[in-house]
Structures are given as C-alpha cells and as structure tokens.
C-alpha cells in the first residue's frame, strides 16, 4: 500500500502545495506505464465529454421534424467531429490506457518494453486532439463524415481547412497507435515474468496482444490513404478526383481496409475486459480459454478481408459482393463462439451481481443484438436496404456503446481500485448502470425501426413523414438518461478517489497477477511474484488443496526475444502495409493511364546505377555488424561510413531525377502518373533519409565509444530497418521502372 506509488503521489501533490510544481512536471514527463495509462484515460474522459455534448446537440436537433435549432453545416460538423472523436480520441485512448496499466502487471513486468515510446504514443493523443479541434478556429471543423468519402473531402467540395486538420490529426493519432502496438507486442513477447508462457497469458493480455497486430496491419493503411488525400488537397494531386481520372472508390477501399479492422481494434480490448470480469464474478475460470484465445486470432485474420461489406452499395460487382458476403458471415463464427463461451462461464457459477458484472451482462445481451444486426448487413440484399440508414446507426452504436462502452464502464469499476487504492461506490455504480441501460436502449433500439421506415443517416432534419416524428422524439429522450449516467460516473470517480473504501490488494478475490501487488502498485510494480504454473496464479495460492492444472511446459529458462529487434520488426510490419497501399495505388493508376507523362519518360539506366548503390549499402551495413561483433571498431566505423555514403548517393540520384522532371514541367499536379510517382518514390526517399539520420546517430554514438562490448541489438535493429528500406526499393524499382518494359 505504501511506497512511491502513482496515485498516492498525485494525492500528496494535491494536499501539499510545496510539492505541487514538482509533481505536475513529474506527470508531464513521466514514462511510467501506470501514469501514462492514467493520462490516456483522463484525456479520453475529456474528449468523451466533448463528443457526448456533440451527440446531445444532434439529438436535440433531430427531436422534431423540420427543426431549425442547428444550421445544416453545424450539424454536419457535429456528426463528423462526434464520430472522429469517439473513435480516435475516446475509445482508442481509454482502451490503450487500460492495456497500459493492466497488461504489464498481468505478465509480471516492471513496465512496457519501450517506456519513452510509450510516452510518445500517449502525447500523440492530446496533439492529435488539439489539431483536430483547432480546425474550429481555422475556418471550421470538417463536415465530411468520419470516413471523409472522396470526392466530397477534396478541395473542390471542401475548400476550407477542416479536412486538412482532420487528416493530419488522424495521421498523428494513427502514428501514436502504431507506436503503442509495437510496444504491446515487444512487452508481451520480451518482458514476461518467469513461468508466464504464452499459453498462460491472462485473456485480457492475450486478446490485446492479438489486437496489437490488427493495429499494426490496419493503421498504416489509413495513414497511406490520409497521405494521399493530403497530397491531393495540398499539392493538387488527383488520387481521388474522378474529374482527373482519380477514383472515388479507391478511397473507400483504402478507408475500409483500415476501417473494418478498426471496429475490432475498438472491440477486442472490450472482449478482453469481459473475459477477465465474467470469470471472477462467476467464480469460475473462463469456459474454453483456448477457444476464446484462438477465436481472437481468427477475428484478427478474418478482419483483414471483410472491408467490402461497407461497400455493397457502391457497385463493386457481383463477384466481390459475394466474396465479402462470405468473409463477413465467416467472421460471425469466432465472434459467436466468444459470446457462447462467456455465457457458459456464467452457467454453473456463483454469480456475484456487483457493478462490473452488471455491465458485463448488459454487454453480453447488447453485443448479441449488435452481432445479429451485423449479420444482417452481411446478408447482402438486406444491406442494400439498410445501409446508410438509421438501422446502421443503431447497429454500430450497439457495438460502440452497447458493447464497448459498457465493457469499459465495467472495466473502470473493476480496475479503479487497483489504480487508485480505493473502491468506486457500488451504489453510485448501480445508478450509472441502470441509467445507462435505460438511456442507451431508449435511444438506439428505436433507431433500427427508424432506418426501416426510410430515414437515412446524416440528415440534419427531416420532413414529417409517418412515424418519423415520435420515433425520433423517443430516441432523443434516451439521451438525457445517458447524460445523467455519465454525470453520476464522473461524480463517482471524483468522490471515490478521495473518500472511497480502501481497496486492499485484491478486493474482488481475482486470480491474475495485477491483484498480487499493492493497490496502487509500487513504481516497479512487484516486490515479489508468486509462482506461475497456470493461468490463475492467485487461485493456486488461495486454493492449495485444488490448484489449476499446470498449463504446458515451464519455459522459465528459455531466453525471451530481444525487445529492440522485436520492436523494429513490428515497426517494419507496419511500414510494409503503408508501402503496400502506395504500391497498389500506383499499380491501379498504372492500369488506367491518363494523358500526359508516363513511366516511359523515366531514366532507367541512371536509376539502376543509383539503385545498385542502395543495394550495396545493405551489404556494407552487414559488414559493419560483423565488425561490431568482433569488436573491430575501426572496421565497423569504416563500413558504416561507407553505408551512409552509398545511401547519400542514392538520395542525390533521386533528387537529381526529381530536378530533371521539374525542369521538363512534370510536377505532382501534372497528371495521375506524376501524382502516384512522386508519392511512392517520395515516401521511399523520406524513409531512406530517416534511415540515414538514424545511421548518423549510430555513427556518432560509436565514435563516442558506444557498442564497445560488441553487443548492439539496437544497431542490429537499425540494420533491419535499413535492409527493409532497400527491399521496398526492389518493389518500387520493379513497379515503376521495370514493369513498363514488359508492355
């Protein structure tokens, strides 16, 4: 209970004015995973209030037909900001906060693998949030919807800067999310306590580990799309402008190739929370750990191939419609399996109906409804009617609120004692719960029917058609209950933080490692860890007479992978997705040539010459690594300098090619080929440049005498990146320069 603990220090700071300045700075500069987690969650709370008020205003506007309470553009800005904020600034940060706090504790680690990267990831959230909201002062918030369909999001139709701020903000937030995912993967793979094998991971950790891979696969796709959109808007490119040969549908493919995995990115942490809470409050282990774990992997894999079900009405053609119908129906199976496992965990248990469990039960039923209406969207003809209607609005709010927010509220009640050392009030928690259940269902159940009677989403007002009026009024009435619920929650958090019942180490009699340390945990998390032989170490201690069966072999003596290399490989995985999208987009436009310059005008011979320099630099770097391992400092420095020189020559070559093209009048805005060419080679060049900066830093460090021991996993990790950049160039070279030769 004592020691330099996170919240306790904060409490000291509140009470003792002399220490305040110091602690304030300490919170701003922290790299402690528990403090960063709290910062994530408090930031999410701020944006939750903002986005909630936006929703309130929209429902007031829609309460009656032909309402003039809000101007059309105000309404359009509100729903754009509400969606963007709730997804990127509320649900993602709050779940990242939980993962940040709980995951290292659950695996018996001292911190995340990269504490400073962790801080970077967090600070991307306020930066992105401020950028997004700064648009309000810079001519107006974006009014294009959270998926910013082109060409509406392009300059001719959204000329003010709202969309630019939106795109840059999400790029920043996406980058932060990627860094978070890299950290999670490296932490789980490299920092597990002795005995904590992959098969013994608590499900919250396991599911969020899987989720990190989805983030790594999906967010770079969005970032690539955003980069292309910004190039269109800022440099007069043509990617998504049909008037110049660009494709409006390509934006949809890119956006939803991110957007649907994103749904699982939001939902999986919630699944993780529920998978912890239901067993503890049913007093039974999860039913079918392996099935819950494996179904998460199945969801992750399938989630990459279902995006087209967002596009059944855009005219993809029958074969693609059928493909995405099948894949979308298949993903219902692992999701359904999870619901059944949670239900079976309750059956035969001794269920304690405390607040965390109440939220999980409501989660189960509401998520079931969300899943069922979700399947109806995979039944293609039904989607042809209900897509873009309030039926869809109801469906995704059942996912986002009915499932995810409810699980998060349960998670707050469950883990708040660990974070603060004090219990949240059970009675206030029940008020929050019941107000939320009533308010949520009042608001959203009726919206299914509103959609079926023909109300499309995103309309700021509507004529007085049969049934529309009372249905909308009913929907709006629920919002007041939800608002009251949120107020009670904030009140509960504030009061309980100072005056709540002291929690003790393990208030819920739970079984995972976060409950094996004080509440809040000390800075280094654990003074001693219990033996880990299965999935519930604390159960084994509490019930020596009937411990869990031992899961799998003990691999305590196996060395865990190096976190530097693991981290950089995860980063490379994400970068591959980014370049994959740029290359595919280039190929798409290569297949639909426009008048004007094309790839035939490029100087192949010269480029091949510079390419050889880049490829050789991979070899020279490898020589430098060997020299490092053999502690031959001079040789290592020499090969490294050679590597940097070769990389620089390549860059000079690329600059020269750009210069020649500019001289002959070819610019980003010239035609689609130019737009795609400069984007693809430009981003590669940028990566070479960043790699050069990294190598120069290593050169400087080595010059100063670092790496003298011959161990340099960071150096090797940088090498992975450098080789990756070369491999990308193989693909770019083939796509841009070699492919036209075969025509």
């Amino acid at each position, binding site marked *: 209970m004592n020691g330099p603990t996170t919240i306790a220090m904060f409490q000291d700071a509140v009470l003792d004015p002399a220490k305040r300045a110091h602690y304030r700075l300490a919170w701003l500069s922290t790299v402690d995973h528990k403090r960063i987690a709290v910062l994530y969650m408090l930031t999410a709370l701020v944006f939750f209030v903002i986005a909630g008020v936006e929703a309130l205003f929209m429902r007031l506007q829609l309460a009656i037909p032909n309402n003039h309470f809000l101007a059309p553009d105000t309404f359009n800005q509100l729903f754009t900001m509400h969606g963007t904020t709730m997804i990127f600034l509320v649900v993602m940060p709050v779940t990242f906060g939980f993962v940040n706090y709980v995951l290292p504790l659950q695996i018996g680690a001292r911190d995340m693998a990269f504490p400073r990267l962790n801080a970077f990831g967090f600070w991307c959230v306020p930066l992105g949030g401020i950028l997004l909201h700064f648009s309000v002062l810079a001519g107006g918030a974006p009014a294009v919807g959270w998926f910013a369909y082109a060409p509406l999001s392009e300059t001719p*139709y959204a000329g003010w800067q709202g969309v630019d701020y939106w795109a840059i903000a999400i790029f920043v937030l996406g980058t932060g999310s990627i860094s978070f995912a890299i950290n999670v993967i490296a932490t789980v793979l490299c920092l597990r306590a002795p005995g904590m094998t992959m098969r013994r991971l608590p499900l919250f950790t396991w599911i969020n580990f899987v989720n990190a891979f989805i983030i790594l696969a999906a967010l770079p796709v969005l970032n690539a799309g955003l980069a292309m959109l910004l190039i269109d808007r800022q440099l007069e490119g043509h990617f998504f402008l049909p008037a110049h040969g660009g494709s409006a549908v390509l934006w949809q493919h890119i956006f939803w190739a991110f957007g649907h995995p994103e749904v699982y990115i939001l939902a999986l942490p919630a699944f993780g929370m529920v998978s912890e809470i239901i067993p503890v409050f049913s*007093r*039974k282990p999860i*039913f079918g750990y392996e099935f819950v774990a494996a179904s998460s992997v199945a969801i992750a894999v399938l989630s990459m191939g279902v995006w087209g079900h967002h596009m059944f009405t855009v*005219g993809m053609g029958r074969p693609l419609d059928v493909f995405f*119908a099948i894949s979308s129906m298949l993903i219902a199976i692992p999701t359904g399996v999870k619901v059944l496992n949670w239900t079976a965990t309750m059956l035969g248990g001794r269920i304690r109906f405390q607040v965390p469990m109440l939220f999980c039960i409501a989660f189960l039923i509401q998520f079931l409804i969300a899943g069922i209406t979700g*399947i109806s969207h995979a039944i293609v003809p039904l989607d*042809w009617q209900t897509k*873009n209607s309030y039926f869809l609005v109801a469906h995704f709010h059942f996912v986002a609120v009915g499932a995810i927010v409810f699980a998060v509220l349960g998670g707050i009640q469950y883990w708040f004692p660990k974070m603060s050392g004090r219990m949240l009030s059970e009675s206030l928690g029940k008020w929050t719960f019941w107000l939320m259940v009533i308010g949520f269902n009042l608001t959203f159940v009726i919206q299914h029917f509103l959609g079926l009677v023909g109300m499309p*989403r995103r309309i700021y007002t509507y004529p007085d058609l049969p049934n529309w009026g009372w249905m909308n009024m009913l929907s709006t009435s629920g919002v007041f209950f939800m608002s009251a619920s949120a107020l009670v929650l904030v009140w509960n958090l504030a009061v309980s933080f100072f005056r709540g019942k002291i929690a003790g180490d393990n208030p819920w009699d739970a079984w995972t490692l976060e409950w094996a340390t004080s509440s809040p945990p000390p800075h280094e998390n654990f003074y001693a860890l219990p033996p880990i032989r299965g999935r519930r170490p604390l159960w084994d201690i509490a019930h020596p007479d009937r411990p869990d069966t031992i899961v799998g072999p003990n691999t305590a003596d196996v060395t865990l992978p190096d976190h530097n290399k693991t981290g950089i490989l995860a980063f490379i995985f994400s970068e591959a997705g980014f370049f994959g999208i740029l290359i595919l987009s280039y190929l798409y436009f290569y297949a639909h040539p426009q008048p004007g310059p094309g790839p035939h005008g490029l100087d192949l011979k010269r480029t091949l010459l510079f390419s050889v320099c880049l490829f050789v630099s991979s070899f020279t770097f490898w020589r430098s690594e060997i020299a490092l391992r053999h502690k031959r400092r001079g040789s290592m420095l020499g090969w490294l300098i050679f590597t940097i020189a070769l990389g620089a020559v390549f860059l000079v070559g690329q600059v020269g090619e750009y210069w020649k093209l500019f001289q002959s009048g070819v610019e980003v805005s010239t035609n689609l080929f130019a737009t795609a060419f400069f984007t693809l080679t430009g981003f590669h060049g940028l990566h070479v440049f960043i790699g050069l900066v990294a190598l120069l830093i290593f050169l400087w460090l080595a010059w100063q005498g670092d790496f003298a021991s011959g161990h340099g996993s960071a150096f090797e990790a940088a090498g992975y990146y450098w080789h990756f950049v070369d491999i990308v160039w193989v693909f770019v070279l083939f796509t841009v320069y070699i492919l036209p030769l075969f025509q």
Partner: protein
Amino acid sequence: MSSSNALDPQSPLARAIYDLGIVSGIILALIFVIVTGGVVYAIFHFRARAGEPDPNQIAGNRKVEVTWTVIPFLIVVLLFALTLPAMNRADPPPPPSADVVVTGHQFWWQADYPASGVTTANEIHIPAGKPLSVRLESKDVLHEFWVPKLTRKMTNVPGQPNHIWLQADKPGTYIGQCSEFCGTQHAWMRIVVVAEEPTQFEQWQQTQLRPAQAPTSSATTKGLELFRTSTCINCHAINGVPGANSRVAPDLTHVASRRQLGAGILENTPSNMRAWLKSPQHIKPGALMPDYSLTDEQLDQLSEYLSTLR
C-alpha cells in the same frame, strides 16, 4: 400520405429483399432467444448466496465447444444459401441500355429518358408494372439513390456509372432520398417516384417533350425577360427559350407540373415559388442557387411566369 417504409414493399425487387429479411429475421431472432435464454437462466439459477464456497472449476468442454463452432457455421451456410438467389431476384443483371439515367447533383436529382429525350428533375415518372433499367451517375460527389418501397439503394459514383432496376406494382407516389452524405443540404435531396398507368405515363412524356408555354400576359413576358437577363439562364434550361439550355441546375421547362420545389423542401405552389425565388438561401441554406435581390414586382413577375410552365 406517401411513405418510404421498407417494410411495405411495392415491387418484386423490394419484395425479394423483404421476404429474405423475414426469413433471416426469424432465424436470427431464434439465435437471440436461445442465447439470451442461457444468460437469463444463469442469472436466476446461479446467483451467489452468502457463505457458499466457489463452484466446480470447469475450464471447458472440447465437445461442447466444437459443437457450438459447427452450429454457427451451418447457420451461416444456410443464410448464404438464402442470400445468393435473393441477390439475383432483387438486382437482376442490367440490359445493355438504360430506360432512365438518374444523375446526382449537389443537391438535386436529374432524370433523363434517353429513348424519348425527356429531361426532368427530382420527380421520376414510371409506368406501373414495368421494370425500368436505371443508370445512376453523378456530376460531382457521391450520392445514393434510395426509394425503399421500390428497389435497393445504389450509390451514384462520379466516373463509374451504376445500374439498378426500378419498378412499381401499382400506380402511386413513392418517396425516397439521397442516402450517401453529399454535403451541406444532403438532408433535402429527396426524390419522388410517380408510377402511372402506361397510357398516362405516355401522356406525361408527350407533355414533357413539348416546349415551354410561351408567355401570354405582360407580367409573364417580363418574367421570361427576367429569366433571360438575370443570371437564371446561366444554370437553368427552358426548352423553347433561345440560349436556355444549361444543365447545371434543374430543367424548368415544365417546372410547374412538379409536386415539389428545392428537392423536397417545399410544396410547389405559386406562393412557395415566390418565397423560394426571394431567398433560396433562407429556405435551403447551402443550396448552390444564390440569393438575388429581386424587387417585389420582379418576384411577382418571375414566379408568375414560372408557375405557367406546366
């Protein structure tokens, strides 16, 4: 009053979707009842009572789990088997040429009938009982054509024409609207489909093909003059008025014959027409038609002229 209720299908196309919805709805409702039943049973039967020890620690049952992985798979196969034929019933393959071309604009619909040459706006007339082939296009951003009682929705994509079938069993008025967010006035981009007996439809087409009614009074003559000398003529077409052939804004040749103004925001009455001309930006802020400072007299003349264009 006409409605846009998808639960009241009025064509074989919409009915194919509706029937599929009923069948799959029953299957999905059964799933809901069974699983919820399990949860409710657990809530009432396995409530913890004070002093009870922890229950049996059952960690799973492979057979049960495999079973409940296979059963959803079979359900999914069944749903897919229902889906595939319904797709073809609700949206049969298109013929080579379209009967109607519906083009989305910010924020109104243009309807062209290639065979007859009729052009109109926001109000599509079709002969009852006959499936019409419709090509969907867009002049600017994405729009989406949705008339729930009659057919599936489909996006109007600039640069990529899409196809749907449109049919109504009986004569009547069927309403719908743009369902893909398209900008400021997306809410008022409504559409009316008027199904008529084939002879009436033929008559309507003949009327629409006639050039505009020439002005007969001095007020309407001045109204026409205002149309030509103000900037109206830059965007609007009136068949029979020299130089008035722009397709940027709705064709006005027979504007008075249409039911609504501003793509559904006003009933088409002479007084509403006058109010619209006085300040379209007041009535439909963000519409691409700007406000003009017309005098009261000019407003009378212009609205009187337009009201004669039946």
